[in-house]
């Protein structure tokens, strides 16, 4: 795996993703061309079935394209075997899931330390947890935390390994609007401060205003890539 420092965060050319559902072949992505620069906060918008989550999964190495060229941080993902994809996810990508996906039998601190240990440094888990405002909740199990708190733990967990790329799939989708805004602000601030490239999938059009880049998808195609000259901080969004 090679990663040239000047390569784009994401480079996609003619990416197609097909699924077989019984006798029917469904094209989730129909030739996506995309280039995202490093350090950008990318918001991916589109209606249900537009292919945004599929594209996110391909970028995250959870799935592989049926055809086309896809490179993340200079690493071509096409044809990587399971071991290489695992290594890629370990070294390159941080995930924030809609349903938080914390390990229920580990405390907040341990959830973060889990990934710290994976990359060989669990010592920063407490610091990360503190940075998301949960130092006093470190020894609570996920079930003892609110949804917003759980998502903040998930953000700390994603950042503890200092990934160059963070993927967030509807990170506020399971939260009420107020909590969602708080979590959004935290995600925006922490990733900006660390210079992490973020790709966030959302239904919420409002969040388009916080992205440096806004990618619109429809029916498996990228229909628009909009560069935002003056993105807002989430806290400045109305409502």
């Amino acid at each position, binding site marked *: 795996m090679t990663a040239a420092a000047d390569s784009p965060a994401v480079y996609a050319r003619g990416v197609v993703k097909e699924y077989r559902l019984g006798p029917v072949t469904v094209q989730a992505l129909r030739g996506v061309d995309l280039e995202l620069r490093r350090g950008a906060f990318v918001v991916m918008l589109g209606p249900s079935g537009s292919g945004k*989550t*599929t594209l996110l*999964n391909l970028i*995250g190495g*959870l*799935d592989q394209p049926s055809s086309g060229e896809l490179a993340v941080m200079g690493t071509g993902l096409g044809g990587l075997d*399971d*071991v290489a994809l*695992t*290594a890629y*996810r*370990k*070294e390159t*990508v941080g*995930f924030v*899931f*809609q*349903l938080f*996906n914390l*390990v*229920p*039998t*580990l*405390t907040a601190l*341990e959830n973060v*330390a*889990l*990934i710290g*240990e*994976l*990359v060989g440094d*669990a010592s920063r888990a407490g610091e990360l947890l503190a940075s998301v405002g949960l130092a006093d909740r470190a*020894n*609570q*199990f*996920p*079930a*003892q935390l609110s949804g917003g708190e759980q998502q903040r733990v998930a953000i700390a*967990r994603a950042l503890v*390994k200092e990934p160059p790329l963070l993927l967030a799939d509807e990170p506020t989708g399971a939260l009420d609007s107020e909590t969602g805004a708080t979590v959004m602000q935290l995600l925006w601030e922490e990733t900006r401060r660390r210079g992490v490239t973020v790709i966030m999938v959302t239904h919420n059009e409002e969040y388009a205003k916080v992205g440096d880049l806004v990618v619109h998808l429809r029916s498996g195609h990228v229909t628009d890539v909009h560069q935002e000259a003056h993105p807002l901080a989430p806290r400045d969004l109305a409502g």
Partner: protein
Amino acid sequence: MSAGSNRWLARKVWRDAVALGSTSIALMVLVAVGACLFVIFSETRANLEASYQGFYRDHGFADATILVDLAPESLVISARQIPGVQDAIGRAVKDGTIILRDRARRRVQGRFVGVDPRGVTDINTLLLLRGRPLSSRSDCLVEHQFARLNEVRIGDRLSASYLGRRRDFRVVGMVASPEYIYPAPSKEAPWASPQAFGVVWIDEDAARQWFGIGRQVTEVHVRCRPGTALGVLEILKGLGERYGLRSWWDQREQPSNHLLSMDLQGFQALSVMFPVLFMFAAALSLYSSLTRIGRLQTGVVGFLRASGFSARQVMWHYLLQGGLIAGAGATPGLFIGHWLAVLMTAKYVSVLHLPNAVNRAHPDVLLAAFSLSMVTGLVSAWLPARAAAAIPPAVAMRGDRDDEDMTRRMRWLLTLTSRLPVLWRIPLRGLARRPSRTLFAVGGLVSGTSLLLSTVGMYASITSTIDGFMNKTLRYELDVAFISRAGEPLLQAVAETAGVDGVYRTCQLIARFRGRKGSRNLTLMGIQPGQRSLGVQTLDGRPCRPAPGEVWLPQKLAGAIGVEPGDAVQVEWAFSSRQRFVKQRMRVAGLLDPSLGGMAYGNVDDLERSFLDRTWPDGGRGAQIICDPEVGKSLRRQLERDDLVAACISIQDIRDEVETSLRVTLIFCTVLLAFGMALAGAVLHSVSSVGILERLRELATLRSLGFSAQATALTAAVEIYTMALFGLLFGLPAGTWLNRAYLSLYETETMSFEPVLPLWGYLLVTAIVLGLVACSLRGGLRRLQLMDLAQATKARE
């Protein structure tokens, strides 16, 4: 709610069961095997019991019997006058030697029974299986199992020797008798190979003349009105005391019936023990699977409740799920169980040659098995069903249940596991996450492990006891019985034969031991101090060296009659003849391990002096010969030609019999082992598949976050292996106990199996269980490998 909507719910129950796939099948298999085992053992037992009872009824099986030395026929008249007695007969019966000369050429122990050839009696009548009834004084009828095993055919000549008086008979028929369904020679020494113990029925007058007893009888058998047998037997015993009462029994204690009853008891125990293990495991696995379904379907429950289904309907819906799996498992289990019961009964009755044997379905057994299965299904489904129904609709609609309880429960594990690598903490705490599921899974594994271990233990205990008996106790090549002391001079010639390493005189008599708590009959054997041909050991493992005036008793018999070492015990020779009832007080020198062939031991010279020499005839004497096997063969041929020799048994004969019975034991244990593996395997399969299914999102998340497939698989495997280790931790002691409990069913005063569980047994069972864990994990780990990470990370937990 309308019937229509209930129909759709019923369809959902079916589809949910199908969706569980191999887990459903594993659960059904557990229920099926449990029901099947219940039906096999219960129906076989019911069939055999009905067959025996039918045979007893049709052939006037005596309700009470006494054996005396010799009594006038007036004893029979007196017996008929006892209140409750419907009919009584007296018979002349003596033991001697059968000399086979046609195909098999050997001498074996024989019992000669005089019967009225006109068949006027209704008590203990014979069933003629082949041939014709007695018509002359030289005709004889032979017990069919003995005839078959020794290739005796109709028309064969058969010589019989009683106290040196020989008679030749012509075999005219093969018969079955209610007294000898299993040919047991006596209550005191019931075990005999059907090949080495033959019962021959001859003309009554010819028998009396041959025995030289005139019109006297040696046995009185009575039929009584229901419920009077025990009272009648007591009065009979009182009457018999005057004539040298040797032994007595009611139907329950009758030697053949007693052995058959032990068999039936074994079936009864098996019909409870094994189905309970399987049903228990099925219940636990069903509970954990249905709990999983309930959790997965929390949103569905919310929808149902929001749509107007009552909590009761929701509960019934999930109860039905347990009922469906139990019913679907029980149905084939009943059919297969019935089919196997028919086969097993047929095999049994063909060996025993029981005429008009009952071999049919028993609706009560089938109904009980089905009810047992349904109760198992419904009871195990009740908790998950109740939990599903109890979720408030609003909570259910959100799709996730409050896990607050879980975290409280897990607090204590926090410190315990905090030093472990994080990947190890996840599965270990996972055990506390659903404690009831863990508990039930471990319970299922304990059942499987204990069944496996008790089976291994059963085989190890039986083989070890037999090995000990064959290799440590029996050290002779030939065991010779003489018809009288006149045979003893033969020993001098035997001792001088080249290749003979030792000749030891022995004697045997069936004695009655009277202690503080009562009396028991048992074979008393006389041996010489330092006798190398017999390795009799005391309880503490020392060789038994009986001195004059001393007797060594099996531990259990001593307990039954209430004597301890150092006590005096009255020894009576119950089977002496000529109305001389010999009594002798002896000192209990010590206790013996009552394993196979349990006997009491005394000094041979002392016993001859005290008992055998004081009566006539002077049988009961014999010898054990240590020699080379080839020399033994030649010696045997010579000895069997001599009329002073009653019987000659080689160690190889005994080994052959043991091997035959061990083959049956091995098959039985292999079948049980297979059942045990099926039990543990099914539990593990459902535990591991549910465990992985339940944690699919968690495991997928770990994979997404960069953990390797191996690391993720490790967390899944650790949880299952930990449960298996707990299963072993409790299952191994439970199996050890079960082994003891099962073997104790077959314990009598003269025989017991020392519960043995060698280290290899524990290792084997541990290896089987861990191997089954590995197999059961394969499916789950494959699912992990193939899972769609993107989908699984979004799955509901």
